[in-house]
């Protein structure tokens, strides 16, 4: 007889949901979606052991559980902390968490080269997004940025160690997807680096996936290097019969030309199915693939840039989160516009709106 599973109630930023025991705060927040989900630079749900390192997903736990409602003394890494029944979590409603996150962004950037103009990751870089959404303007760092000796890790993958934020995702990929890991984190502290030690090319059928899991431009596709900016390309879902992997990929086209092939990613930027090196690096002709259609791209992404009709609208959760209050930063349009006075619902106006529609007699009380 199947026992009915007791679900845990957790409240994150004033929104309560029920999740299965064993769910992390981050995954519970992702269920709510939108801004409530903390950013995650190192956690990767499909990579065992990942998470906890970058500290961008820190949240405040205002109440541990119904049984023990004491707040947790420190901010916790939401990706590695399981929810408890009755837990109350504050993410974007916690000044403490937002301040800490600003600090983390600053720490991640002090030694980052900020070479976005020549970085192939630009436009799909999670550090760019993170800095834009959570960082502060300017830097207070006045020292020479860290550099590393260059390592060539083979014909397919380009390593830029200066851009690395040491999320360890690529190490987990090599550990969990390939038979024999050849690269790792060497040295320690602020000198830690990704390397093979023996200047060796990474060789494995699935090692190319390190490119997709890398949140920044530390590991990029050498076959795509400097070929194009991602926002000039058109992503399309495609597949082929591949003996090694599922063969389900995203093609990045310009016209008929395939500039690069990546795995398909979900709304959190995580690869759905890892693909093999052959699909990624060798199949650069449209004829190699069966095109399924345009890839759905988040409306907020620079890649969407108005090219596509089929963009995904992120769920706007701010009003719910703020307990009905309007976010301070957003302008109250009614105060500045005669047009959008309360009582006029633009969506109910048939056809194009005219000045007539805004005459006072047409406004519902």
């Amino acid at each position: 007889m199947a026992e009915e599973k007791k679900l845990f109630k957790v409240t994150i930023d004033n929104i309560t949901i029920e999740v299965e025991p064993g769910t992390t705060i981050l995954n519970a927040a992702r269920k709510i979606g939108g801004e409530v989900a903390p950013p995650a630079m190192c956690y990767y749900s499909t990579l065992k052991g990942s998470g906890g390192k970058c500290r961008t997903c820190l949240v405040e736990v205002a109440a541990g559980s119904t049984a023990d409602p004491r707040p947790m003394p420190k901010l916790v890494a939401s990706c590695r902390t399981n929810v408890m029944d009755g837990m109350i979590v504050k993410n974007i409603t916690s000044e403490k968490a937002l301040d800490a996150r600003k600090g983390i962004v600053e720490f991640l950037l002090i030694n980052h080269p900020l070479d976005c103009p020549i970085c192939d990751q630009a436009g799909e870089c999670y550090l760019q997004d993170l800095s834009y959404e959570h960082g502060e303007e300017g830097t207070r760092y006045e020292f020479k940025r860290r550099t590393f000796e260059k390592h060539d890790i083979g014909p397919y993958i380009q390593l830029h160690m200066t851009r690395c934020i040491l999320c360890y995702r690529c190490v987990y990929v090599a550990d969990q997807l390939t038979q024999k890991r050849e690269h790792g984190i060497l040295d320690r502290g602020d000198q830690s680096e990704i390397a093979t030690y023996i200047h060796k090319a990474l060789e494995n059928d699935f090692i190319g996936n390190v490119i997709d899991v890398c949140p920044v431009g530390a590991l990029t596709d050498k076959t795509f290097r400097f070929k194009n900016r991602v926002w000039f390309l058109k992503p399309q879902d495609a597949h082929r019969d591949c003996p090694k992997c599922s063969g389900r990929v995203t093609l990045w086209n310009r016209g008929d030309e395939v500039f690069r092939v990546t795995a398909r990613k979900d709304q959190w930027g995580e690869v759905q199915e890892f693909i093999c090196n052959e699909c990624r690096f060798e199949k650069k002709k449209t004829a190699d693939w069966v095109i399924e259609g345009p890839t759905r791209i988040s409306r907020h992404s620079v890649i969407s840039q108005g090219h596509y009709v089929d963009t995904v609208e992120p769920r706007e959760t701010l009003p719910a989160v703020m307990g009905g209050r309007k976010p301070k930063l957003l302008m109250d349009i009614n105060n500045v516009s005669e047009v959008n006075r309360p009582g006029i619902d633009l969506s109910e106006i048939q056809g194009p709106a005219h000045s007539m529609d805004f005459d006072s007699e047409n406004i519902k009380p």
Partner: protein
Amino acid sequence: MGRKLLLEKAQVEGIRNYDVYRREGGYRSVEKAFKEMSPDQITDEVKKSGLRGRGGAGFPAGMKWSFIAKPEGVPRHLVCNADESEPGTFKDRFLMEFIPHLLIEGLIVSSYALGSHLTYIYIRGEYSWIIDILETAIGEAKSNGWLGENILGTGFNLEIYIHRGAGAYICGEETALLESLEGKRGLPRIKPPFPAVKGVWDRPTVVNNVETLAAVVPIILMGGEEYAKIGVGKSTGTKLISACGNINKPGVYEIDMTISVEDFIYSDEYCGGIANGKKLKACIPGGSSVPILPANLLLKTAKGEKRIMNYESLSDGGFAKGSMMGSGGFIVLDEDQCVVKHTYTLARFYRHESCGQCSPCREGTGWMEKILKNIETGKGKMSDIDLLWDIQRRIEGNTICPLGDAAAWPVAAAIRHFRDEFEWHILNPEESQIRNYGLAHYADPLEPAVAAV
């Protein structure tokens, strides 16, 4: 003369050898524990004793023991943390070097209490000659029937092995230590799960400091309640203090936690006063991680009471006006010392020892070091002080393990109490390269506390 429980016999000629140690009453606690007590009774005695972890955090040892999970068929382990690396701390080294059998004895009793048949001593790699001393002691204990199979006919088996580290302060953090014991890089684990549930090789594990485990011996011999009568409040028993810096008699001292800081520094029994007739400027009372205090706040609490060498009194006033007992590394600075430079060396230490796993510590420790170096070498700016404050604030509490806090606190406390010295450095870039700020007003009497209404 304070009561001695651990170092009482340290001066006995040849105490390092088994025969002398045994003749002086060694291994009696094993006999008592194995013949008269059950493992749970031992844990109870340790609980009653109020013994707090001597490694730095001060967590009640008996409670830690009681948390150990006991799943069926899964071995449990005791690991002795001898990775003593906190600047200012060298007490465990003294204990292991001079009376190694005391640690072995404590380990046997504790292993029996916890059900560990395979116990490790994780010792810092640099203490290489101590490894030989311990291995000899383990060999002697084994050949005399205190280790091995069926000890004292109880059916209890135990092996103790030494695991040599290789130079990493972070391995003193218990989960990093366990990673290192598994043959990996010493990266602290994210808790939970705690070692008591999933420790080394995913087995329930207790990690205790050398001094903590040695203290189990007197606790068993005299009983937990008797032990708890020594000291005061929640600071029970005796504590080893390693005193260093500008004092006449640096060394390791055993104190019962009732003597005042002033007596400890100035009495001939302990530090013997400040060296070369100088004046006391500042002190870090519990190892480099704990807040530094100026002389006036060190000797008396903000309330105007005498500060005592125990957990409660040293932390009286919180971080704003107090410090911590920490690991008992007592670093004394005289009037000629430069707090900026000292803080810089500590920042360099923490940058060097950061494992690099999580971003605030990896990036923040290096940043603080660079700024402090600038200030120290006369290249600082006034805004650097506030920047330093902001950096340490954003490291503290936001890291995986306490190394972030340990790196942040010394900087915070130095700025809090010695801000004028930092400012002087910045405003007098040339002069600060030739002379130090000196004692300034750091030893001036505190303003009398306002009586609570």
